[in-house]
């Protein structure tokens, strides 16, 4: 058994509170980014102001996603051979929890779509503008959810005793 992935990382790891803030930025940031992209022009915000708002939100989501993906040297993506027994257990548990969240969100989105279509008494048109953010969201959350769960749940590292 080798442990090169998380063998000896620096103690300067973000605290649990900071990690949870990063998770929230990644989770809430993407819907906010899509809402800003679509909604700000409707509110009259265009041009440079729109670009800055969308850019800041997009960059925030990207950086938060990267930070989560790399948490504890990508522990959530590492194979068994690079983890010890506790890390394997944490990773597997994270995938289970991530799947539950992911499946629930997908189900809710589909349910809301169905209810809307029923309420409007016409099918929801799956236009490119509607489908594209959903696809990017599915890819983003599919990639980072396990890492986000690990970052959210892992206790702070014990101090050296």
């Amino acid at each position, binding site marked *: 058994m080798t442990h090169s992935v998380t063998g000896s990382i620096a103690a300067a790891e973000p605290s649990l509170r900071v990690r949870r803030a990063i998770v929230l930025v990644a989770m809430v940031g993407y819907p906010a980014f899509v809402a800003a992209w679509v909604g700000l022009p409707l509110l009259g915000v265009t041009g440079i102001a729109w670009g800055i708002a969308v850019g800041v939100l997009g960059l925030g989501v990207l950086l938060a996603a990267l930070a989560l993906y790399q948490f504890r040297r990508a522990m959530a993506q590492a194979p068994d051979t690079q983890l*010890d*027994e*506790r890390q394997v257990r944490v990773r597997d548990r994270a995938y289970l929890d991530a799947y539950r969240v992911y499946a629930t969100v997908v189900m809710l989105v589909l349910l809301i779509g169905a209810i809307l279509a029923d309420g409007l008494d016409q099918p929801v048109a799956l236009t490119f503008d509607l489908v594209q953010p959903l696809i990017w969201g599915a890819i983003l959350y599919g990639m980072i959810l396990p890492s986000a769960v690990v970052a959210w749940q892992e206790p702070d*590292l*014990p101090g050296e005793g």
Partner: protein
Amino acid sequence: VARPSATRVEPVLHNRIALLRTERGLSRQELADVLGVNYQTIGYLERGDYNPSLDLALRIAEHFGLPVEAVFSRSPFQPMSQQLYGEARGPA
């Protein structure tokens, strides 16, 4: 002596890893290297945040040259000082 957190659902398993490691002058990294685990795992074990597998528990006990019940217990360990002197002195 590790005191497991109250929030987890796993059965509580107490251990003396921190005490034994300190007694032998080992860092977490050194103990982790010997046992083939990550040093963070040693910290979580000591803090009672993680219960080891039977294999790891036996390897830890073997490393310290002690029976596994001297390192791990389902009930809290008595403090070492009390164990050594508590009963001998007794009330005056």
